[in-house]
Each structure stands twice: as C-alpha cells, then as structure tokens.
C-alpha cells in the first residue's frame, strides 16, 4: 500500500467524522498557534529592544560613579578632571572622544505650555559620540560652552508639545526653570529608548547646566561620561584604559573601583538574555498546550480504533498485515496533527500580526517576526506529536486478533 493511497484513505476516514476530526485538530491548532505567536512576539521584542540599543551609538562606553554592588562605600564622584584625563590620546590611545554629561529633569515652558523633560548638559563631543544630529539649526559649540550661553536644542517631542510644530522654531525663546533660553536647533527624531522616549529631551551647554540649572557638589561633578572607542575592536582596550586612568586618579585599591564602566555590548547581551529567557519560558508554556493537544489525538484515535474494530478485522481477513493497519492509523493521526499544525501556524501568525497592529496604533514600533525556523519547528513538532501519540492506538489496532475483531459488535 503506497503512502499516497494511505493519505487519501486517511482523509476519507477523517472526512467521515468531520466534527470529531475538527475538535481533535483544535487542540493542535491552539498549541501550535500559541507557540508560533509566542516565538514571533519574542523575536519581535528582541528586535525592537536591540534596535533601540544600537541607536544609542556604536563603540560606546558609559562611565558612572559608584561600584557594581554595595561593597564600595562613599564613591568619589566623577569630575571634569577625570574627563580631561580620559581625553588624552597619549595615555588613552583607544579613546576617540569623551563626552561628559549632566542630566536631570527640568520644567520647560513656552506661552501657556509646560512640559517636564530630560535636560542634558553637554559638550560638542556629545553629538558624534551619541550619533545626534539636528534637523534644523546648529549644534552646541565650544563658544556656547565658554560663554555659558543660554541656548537650547529641543527634541521633536518637546517641540511638538510646546509649539505644535517642528520647523521654524529657531530664535524662539523657551523658559527652563523660569530662565529664558534661545532655541538654536531641533534634534532629529530618535524613537523610543529603554528609559522612555529619547525625543522628550532638551540639550543645553554643559557649563550652562552646571552653573544655572543642575547644580552639583563638588561644582565640577559629572553625572555620566560617554566614551567613544576608536573602533568596535578597541572597545575592550578602551575599557581597560578608562579603568586604569580613573582608578589611578581616585586612588582605588585593586579590584575596588568606585566607578562602573558599561558598554553597549553589555546592554545588548543583557537584553538578549532577558528576552531569550522570556521567549523560552512563554514558548514552553505554549508547548504544554501542544502536548495536551497530542493527548487529545491519542484519546480520539483510541476511540476510533474501538469503533472500527470490525473494519480492522475485515481488513485483516482480506490480507492486511500488521504494518498495513499500523500505517493506516499512524497516517490518520499524523495527518490530523499536521493539518492542525498548518492551521495553527496561520493562527499564530494572525495573532502576531494583530498584536503588531495594536502596538503600532499605540505608538510603539513593534513587529512580531514569524521566522521560517519557527514554522519548520512547529510543523515538524506537530507531526512528531501526531506520530508519537498515534503509535499506541495504531499498535492496538494492528495487534487485534482478526477472529475476535470480526465478531466485535
């Protein structure tokens, strides 16, 4: 008996009891659909997060004050002295640029509109280091720094909130914590980040922020130092150089640095491992429903074997060998789960697409990705489930004694 014939016969038999076949398949449909949807959402989330991380800027290192855990007491704050030491191509040849930053929340207003934004005091190096560009106007220059100029660059979200538009704002005046600042440029849109929108941000000269808005003690304190390595390969060397220079300046004991260096790669690794764990975890839960679907198939196939005992007896009387009966029932169960699996793939894909639409409408850029791998995995897995859970009932059918099977009522 060839396979094609067996498939046709199995289809006929499944077709003979549509309701039951459909309900049996539903278990697999839901299982596979859930697995596909979860994998798609997981892959989409990973993509979105990694995408926003790579938007931070390549070859980037962050230096914070404070140790990685609680064991370091009274960490010495980072200062402009540290910044200048790092910005030395003789002692730190792997470092391309150093951008010190003061960062805090501030109230920005124009006319009647008020908005709480992230205010960042920067130096000109900030633009290349963080990949920032302006869509209109100019960047903050060394002159602005030296003159503690009251100038400001607005993120597009801030511009939208205060003015309702993004262009033609150069020369306008906004108030930051009550002090007037002249708008000299609008930043290019950057999209969502890990810590809220990166577009709800304003940039002012470092010296201005230091002197008038974000006063720190000691006065030359720096919140974060962004460091750009020469290229991607020298990130590790740059990290080493930073560590050496600052620990020397802070007189840290060996292994007790009072600052932390964090690279973009560290963030990517952390984020991937978190989304990976989540995907595996949710996918695992979905796989359980696939298992339950498989047990459903076994159950129904057992009922089917009992119901068709006479037919099996007849087939054996006419010369069917054990193998023929086995193949017949295995074909039925694996067809059930294969077809269920294929429908499930479409269901999962549809769920993913709907979630994508909903999140697109709520402003988050999030595309669930149904990968070929996930589709193959689901197809193979569901067929294997059909085979596996079909073996017991099929074996039972194949081992029926023809005399007794024929007599069965």
């Amino acid at each position: 008996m060839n396979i094609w014939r067996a498939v046709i016969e199995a289809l006929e038999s499944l077709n003979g009891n549509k309701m039951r076949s459909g309900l049996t398949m539903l278990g697999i449909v839901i299982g596979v659909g859930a697995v596909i949807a979860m994998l798609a959402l997981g892959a989409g989330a990973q993509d979105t997060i990694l995408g926003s991380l790579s938007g931070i800027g390549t070859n980037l290192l962050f230096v914070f004050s404070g140790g990685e855990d609680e064991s370091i007491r009274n960490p010495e704050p980072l200062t402009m002295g540290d910044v200048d030491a790092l910005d030395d191509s003789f002692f730190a040849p792997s470092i391309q640029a150093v951008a010190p930053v003061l960062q805090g929340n501030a109230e920005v207003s124009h006319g009647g509109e008020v908005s709480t934004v992230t205010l960042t005091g920067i130096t000109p190096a900030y633009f290349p280091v963080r990949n920032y560009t302006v869509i209109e106007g100019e960047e903050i220059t060394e002159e602005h720094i030296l003159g503690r100029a009251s100038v400001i660059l607005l993120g597009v979200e801030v511009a939208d909130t205060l003015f309702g538009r993004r262009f033609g704002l150069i020369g306008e005046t906004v108030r930051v914590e009550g002090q007037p600042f002249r708008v000299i440029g609008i930043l290019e849109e950057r999209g969502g980040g890990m810590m809220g929108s990166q577009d709800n941000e304003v940039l002012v000269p470092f010296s201005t922020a230091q002197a008038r808005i974000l006063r720190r003690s000691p006065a030359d304190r720096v919140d974060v130092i962004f460091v750009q390595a020469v290229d991607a390969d020298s990130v590790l060397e740059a990290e080493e150089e930073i560590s050496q220079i600052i620990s020397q300046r802070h007189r840290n004991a060996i292994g007790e640095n009072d600052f932390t260096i964090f690279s973009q790669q560290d963030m990517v690794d952390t984020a991937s491992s978190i989304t990976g764990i989540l995907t595996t975890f949710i996918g695992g839960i979905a796989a359980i429903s696939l298992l339950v679907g498989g047990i459903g198939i076994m159950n129904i196939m057992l009922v089917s074997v009992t119901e068709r005992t006479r037919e099996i007896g007849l087939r054996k009387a006419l010369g069917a060998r054990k193998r023929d009966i086995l193949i017949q029932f295995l074909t039925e169960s694996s067809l059930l789960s294969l077809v269920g699996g294929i429908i499930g793939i479409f269901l999962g894909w549809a769920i993913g697409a709907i979630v994508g639409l909903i999140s697109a409408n709520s402003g988050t850029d999030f595309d669930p990705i149904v990968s070929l791998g996930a589709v193959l995995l689901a197809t193979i897995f569901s067929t294997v489930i059909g085979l596996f859970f079909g073996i017991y009932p099929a074996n039972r059918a194949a081992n029926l004694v023809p005399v007794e099977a024929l007599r069965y009522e």
Partner: protein
Amino acid sequence: MDDNVIVTHDLTKVYKMGLVEVHALCGVSLEIKRGEVVAIMGASGSGKSTLMNTLGCLDQPTSGEYILDGEIVADLDDDQLADIRNRKVGFVFQSFNLLPRSTALSNVELPLRYSGITSGRKEKARLALESVGLSDRIDHRPAELSGGQQQRVAIARALVNDPAIIMADEPTGNLDSKVGQEIMDLLLNLNKESGTTLIIITHDRKIAAQAQRIIRLHDGRIRKEVAA
C-alpha cells in the same frame, strides 16, 4: 497439482476461559477436493465457526496439521497468515462487511491493495464486479445498494484475487429466501465456471442441500459426511 485443496489431520482447538478449557475442535480430519462445493453444518457451539476460522486461516489450530493448496499453514506467523488469506481465501460474510464510505469498486479493490499489486487493480476489480452482474453499480456506496447487491459486491471482493477457496459464512443469512437463492445460484455458477472450491457454513438445510457434500459437526467432531 494435488487433487485436494484442503487436507487436515487431527485438528484440535482449545480455548482457555479462565480455568476452564473449552475444546472447540477435537480431532477434525477432512479432505476437500479442488473445485468441490462443501457445506459445513452444525448447531451453534458445534465448532463450525472455529473450523471456518481455522480453514480460512483467521486462526491457528492448537494442534494438528492443515495444508491449504499445498502450503502447510500451522507454524506461520500473523503476517504470513495474512498473506495466505490474501492470496488463497476469499471470504463472504453473513453481514457483508463492506467498508461503508468506499464505493463498490474500492471495496472490491481492497484485497488487491494488500497484495501489493500496483497496476491494473481497477480493471481487475471492474471485471470481478462484472462477473457478479454489477457493472452498472461500481461507483455506488454500500448504503445505496440493496442487501443482495451488497452481498454480490462482497462476492466480487472474494473473487478478485483468484483464491483457492471461497469461505461463505451464512452467505444468505441476512437475505430473504428469494434473494438468498439468487446469491446461492451466483456462487454455484462461479464455482462451475472458474472451478474455485466453495465452502459454505450454514444451518439452513435448503442451502446445504445444494452442496455436493455436507460435513456435519457435533461437539467439535465430524459426526458424519453425506453426499448431498
């Protein structure tokens, strides 16, 4: 070729029902010639079903010898028995036993499928249906056929593999006497034309009387053989 299509020697069959042993066959020895029409009669419990199952290779005897068409049947395993049934035995059952979802043609084709024949199956099945006078019903399903027609399909199915013997178990039991007689005539005709040995298990004297020989069973033994 041997003259006898069936030779048995001292067949016994013992069923164990818990602690009790039931002797369904107690030393049955018989010979059936090629082309012969034989009726096996007996009351229920006489062992005639067991004898039919054994002769039809559906079941193995507990002891004794059985040679069907020159092949020793005892000691064959399940799959070899299935193969013998497929090639040498055509079954006709009281309740027809057709596959309800398949057409007459596919029903008749079924034994060919299990015999591994790949080409010309449809044609052979069509010829078999023609020989039982149903060439205009090949695409009908069992539910669309009368009882007599269903039994004809079953007979065509029994014939399709050119078996050595046809085992008919109460072939007229589910039919009224007129249609039953038609079926008997058909079976006897086919026997005359093709020379296939016909074994009829029945308790109907009228049916048995049409055989050339009647074997009567009683308590698992052959009580007497009479020429009909």
